[in-house]
C-alpha cells in the first residue's frame, strides 16, 4: 500500500485522539441494538404480568455491558490472544462441561449455568472462543496449510466442542461451530479437494443420523430435533409443534405486508407466535413493521457483514484475517439460518438472530466478537499509519 495513492482518513475523538475503529461497523452495531430494544419494547409488554419492560430493560443492560466490552476489546491488540490459544480452548471445553455438570434444564435442554442476575449460556461464548482458538491453531501450521493432517486436526478441534453442545442438546450452536470451522479453513486456504471430502463425509453422516441409525434402532437426534429439521419442508402437511411454529411465523411476517400492522400485530400480541422475543424476533419485526422494517434490519446486517469482510481484507496479519473470517462466518450463518427459519426456507435450529434476539449470552458474545473485529480494524490502521510515517 502506498500512502500517496491511498490517503488514510483518521477519525478523531473529542480530545483529538485518533479513533481507528470502523465507524460504519459501529453504526450497524448500534442500529441493530436500537432495533432490538425497540422491538422487544413493543412485543413483550404482556409477556410478564406486572413487569411490561422486563425483557426490554434487561436487553438494554446486556447491550450496555456488551458495548463496554466491545470498546475495551477494540483497544487491545488481538494478536496477543494467539499466545493464549491453549487456555482459550481449555476454557471453551471446560465451560461446556461445566454446563453439563451444573447447568439447569430449560425446555428440555441443559444449556445454561444460573449466575446471579444472569443465565450464562456457555455455548454462546464458545462461538467466539472457538474462533480465537481455531484461528491460532491454524496459524501454527501456517507452512503446512494444505496438508491433510492440518485439515484433520482442525476438524477434530472443532468437532469435539460441536458434538458436546449438540449433546446438551443445542443443535444450533453446534452447527455454528461447524460453520466457523469451514470459514477458518476456507480463508486459510485449505484445498477444495479437502472440502469436497469433508462434504462427502457430512452427507454420509446426515444419512446415518436421519435414516440409517433410526432404522437400526439408534436415535442420534431427539425426535423433536428431527421434526424441527424436516418440518419446514412441508409445514402445511405437518401438524406438529414445529409446523405450527413455522406456519405462525409465516402468517406473522406475511400479514405485516409492506408497512406492518403496528398495534394490530395480533400474531405477536396474542401469543400465536412462539418464542417471539428470542428465536422468532424477526417474525415480530416482519409483522409489526412490514417489509420496510424487515428490509431495514436486514440492511443493517448487510452493512455489518460488509464491514466485517472488509476488515478481513485489511487485517495486519494472518491471525487477524482468520479471526475476522471466523467471526464473519459466525454472523452470516446465524443471520441466514435464523431469518431463513422465520420465512420458512431453513429448518428450526434454535439459533438466535445476533444482537436482536433477546438473551445476554448471545448479545454480549456478539458484541465482544464485533469488538475483536474493531481491534483487527484498528490494528490494521495503526500499522498502515506507522508505515506511512
Amino acid at each position, binding site marked *: *500500500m502506498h500512502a500517496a495513492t491511498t490517503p488514510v482518513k483518521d477519525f478523531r475523538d473529542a480530545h483529538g485522539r485518533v479513533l481507528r475503529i470502523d465507524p460504519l461497523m459501529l453504526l450497524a452495531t448500534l442500529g441493530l441494538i436500537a432495533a432490538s430494544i425497540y422491538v422487544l419494547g413493543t412485543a413483550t409488554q404482556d409477556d410478564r404480568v406486572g413487569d411490561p419492560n422486563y425483557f426490554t430493560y434487561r436487553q438494554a443492560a446486556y447491550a450496555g455491558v456488551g458495548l463496554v466490552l466491545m470498546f475495551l476489546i477494540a483497544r487491545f491488540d488481538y494478536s496477543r490472544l494467539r499466545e493464549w490459544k491453549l487456555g482459550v480452548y481449555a476454557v471453551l471445553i471446560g465451560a461446556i462441561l461445566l454446563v453439563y455438570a451444573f447447568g439447569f434444564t430449560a425446555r428440555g435442554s441443559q444449556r445454561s449455568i444460573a449466575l446471579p442476575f444472569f443465565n450464562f449460556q456457555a455455548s454462546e461464548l464458545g462461538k467466539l472462543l472457538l474462533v480465537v482458538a481455531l484461528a491460532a491453531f491454524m496459524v501454527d501450521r501456517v507452512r503446512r496449510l494444505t496438508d491433510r493432517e492440518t485439515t484433520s486436526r482442525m476438524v477434530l478441534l472443532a468437532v469435539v466442542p460441536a458434538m458436546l453442545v449438540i449433546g446438551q442438546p443445542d443443535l444450533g450452536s453446534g452447527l455454528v461451530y461447524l460453520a466457523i470451522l469451514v470459514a477458518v479453513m476456507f480463508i486459510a*486456504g485449505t484445498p477444495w479437494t479437502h472440502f469436497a471430502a469433508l462434504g462427502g463425509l457430512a452427507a454420509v453422516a446426515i444419512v446415518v443420523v436421519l435414516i440409517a441409525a433410526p432404522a437400526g434402532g439408534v436415535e442420534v437426534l431427539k425426535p423433536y430435533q428431527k421434526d424441527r429439521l424436516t418440518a419446514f419442508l412441508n409445514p402445511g402437511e405437518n401438524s406438529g409443534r414445529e409446523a405450527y411454529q413455522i406456519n405462525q411465523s409465516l402468517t406473522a*411476517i*406475511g400479514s405485516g*405486508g409492506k408497512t406492518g400492522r403496528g398495534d394490530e400485530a395480533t400474531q405477536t400480541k*396474542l401469543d400465536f407466535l412462539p418464542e417471539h422475543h428470542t428465536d422468532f424476533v424477526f417474525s415480530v419485526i416482519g409483522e409489526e413493521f412490514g*417489509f420496510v422494517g424487515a428490509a431495514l434490519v*436486514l440492511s443493517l446486517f448487510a452493512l455489518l457483514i460488509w464491514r466485517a469482510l472488509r476488515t478481513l481484507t485489511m487485517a495486519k496479519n494472518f491471525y487477524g484475517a482468520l479471526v475476522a473470517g471466523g467471526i464473519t462466518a459466525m454472523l452470516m450463518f446465524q443471520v441466514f439460518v435464523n*431469518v431463513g427459519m422465520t420465512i420458512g*426456507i431453513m429448518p428450526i435450529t434454535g439459533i438466535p438472530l445476533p444482537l436482536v434476539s433477546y438473551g445476554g449470552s448471545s448479545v454480549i458474545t456478539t458484541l465482544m466478537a464485533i469488538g475483536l473485529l474493531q481491534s483487527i480494524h484498528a490494528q490494521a490502521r495503526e500499522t498502515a499509519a506507522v508505515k506511512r510515517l
Partner: protein
Amino acid sequence: MYLDNERRPTLTPQLAFRIAVIGGAALAMFAVIFFRLWYLQVLSGDNYVAAAKSNSVREIKVLAPRGEIVDRHGLPLVENRNSLSIKVTPDKLPARRADREVVYRRLARLLNLNPGRLERRVSRELELLPYTKPTIKQDVDRRVVAYVLERQEQFPGVEPERESLRLYPHGQVGAHLFGQVGEVSPEELKDERFSEVQMGDIVGKAGIEKEYDRFLRGKNGAARVRVDAFGKLTKTLKRDPAEQGKQLRLSLDLGVQRVAQQALAGGTGKGAFAVMNVQNGEMLALGSQPSFDPNVFTKPITKKHLAALTSKDLGEPLLNRALQAGYPTGSTFKLVTAVAALESGHITPSTPLSDPGFLMVGDQEFENASRTPHGVLSLVQALTVSSDVFFYQLGRDMDEKGMPLQQWAHRLGIGRRTGIDLPAEEPGRMPSPEWRNSWYKQGLVDRTWSVGDNVNTSVGQGDLLANPLQMAIAYAAIANGGRVLRPRLGLRIEDANGRARQDLDAPTARRVKISKETRDAILEGLYGAANAPGGTSTPVFAGFPIPVAGKTGTAEHTGRPDQSWYVALAPYPNPKYVVAVTDEAGGFGAETAAPMARRILAELLDVKETGLVQGGVAPD
C-alpha cells in the same frame, strides 16, 4: 497467501478469490431473503392478514332468550331464567388423549360426575352433532364457573356458557299445554319450519312451544371476540345483541285454570276439563289430572323420573286427557242425539214419547238407571230428567239409511280432531256400521253392527270415544246457533312490554244448519236439567246466582267405577261459556263432575261462593 503470520503482504489472488466467494455467498443469501420477504409480505400479504385474523377472531353465538308466555290478563305463565352451563370446545381440548383425560378427570371431580361417563357423553354428542359444543353440565353454580374461568390453563377447552332456561312459576298449572323446548334435532333442521334455525339452537319440541315456535324463538346474536393463542378472550370487537322472541298471549285465564285443576284434583285423581268461549273458541282453561311440574324438563331428566311420568299405574301424568283421551260420554251425548232427531225430522220439540223405564229392541232390553219410569215426555223434559228410554227410541229409529245420528255427530265434531293449536290430539271414535263392520272383518270385534249399537250410542255408551274438548265444541255449536268452532289458545303476539304486534286470527268455524227452534228446545232442556225440579243437577246448582244450563253424564265401564261427566253452558239463555268436565271414576254426573263445573263457573263468572258445594246423587 500469507507465508508467515507477521508478514503482511498484499492480498494473494487465492485469498481475494476466497473472500469474493464469501461475499458472493452473503450477497446470494440476502437476495434470497429479500425475494422471499417480497413474496410473503408484498405479494401474498392479504392472504396472511386473513389467516392472522381467523387465527385470533372468533364468532360466538349468543342464544336469544325465548319469548315469554302470558295468560289473557298478561300474567306470566312461562318465563325465562338465566343459568350457566359448562361446555367443552372440542378443538381447544388438548390434542393428546392422555392430556384430555386429565382435563376430564379434573372436570368430573369439580362437577361431581363420573369421568368415564363424562368422556363417553362428550364423544357421543360429537358423533351425533359434529362441530357443536357438547354440554357437560347444565345449571351450574356460579362459584364453579368462576373456578373454571380462573384456571383456564388447567381446563383448556372448557367454557361456561350463559343459557336461558324456561321457568314455570305456577308449577302444575297449565303444565299439559306449554310443552318443552330443546336443542333442534338433525331431522327437524331439514324441516322448512326451521329454515332459520341453526345447529344447537333451542326450539319448541311440544305443545304451545312447538305450535308457536316461530314467534317465541328469538333471533340469535353474535359477538366477535379476539382471543389469544391460548383461547383466552382479550377483547370484544363487535356485538350483535340477541333479540328475544316475541311474547305470546294466550286466551287462557290463569285463575280459572288454577281453580279447574284444583277442582279436578279434589276428585278421584284422573280426569280432564275444557272451558271455552262459545262465540269465538278461545280456551279459558284446558287441563288434565294427574298433572306434573314442567320445571323438571328444563334439566336433563332421569330415566326413572320419565318412567314415572308416563306410568299407567300413576295415571300417566304427561297425558293430556282433555284432548288425547277417548271416553264414552254418557248422557252428555244426548244433546247430539237430540239435534240429529230434531233436524232429521224424527221428532219435533213437542213430540211425546213414552218412557216406561225400559225398552225392548228385538230381544234385547235397554233400561233406565234403576228402571225408573218417567212416563210420557217431550224432548225438553227428557233432557231435564235425562230419560234414557226416550233417547233409546230415537237411537233405534235413526238406525236407518243415511244414519242421521252419525252424520250429525260428525258435523258437530265427534270422532274428529278439533284443530286446536296444540300439536297432539286424538280424534276419538263415533261408532257407525262402517266402522264396526270393517273392524269385524279385521277380527277386531266379535260381531257386526246391529240396531242395539245405535241405541247404546244414542246415550253416549257403547263404543263411543270422545273427550271433554270435543263435547265442549258440540255444546258450543248448539249455544251459538250452529258454528262448530276451532278452539284456540294463542291470542296475540306481543313485544316484551305487552304491546300488541300481531293479533292471531280467530280460526274459521264450520257452519252447520241448526234451526232456532232446535237450539231453543235443547237449551231449555239443559236449563231444566240444572234448575227445574227433578233436573239431574238441580241440587248441585241450587243457590248459584247465574242461570246455568247443563247436562250430567254417567258413563258405565265394565269392571270399573262409573265415569262422571258434566257439560255446562252459562249464562242461560245466551251462553258465553261452555265448561266440560269429566272424572274417570267419579260415579254419577251429579255426584262429582257437576260440583267441579260449579266451582269452575263460579271462578269464571266471578261468583263468590260461600260454603262447600254439595254433589247431587241423582242418577241420569
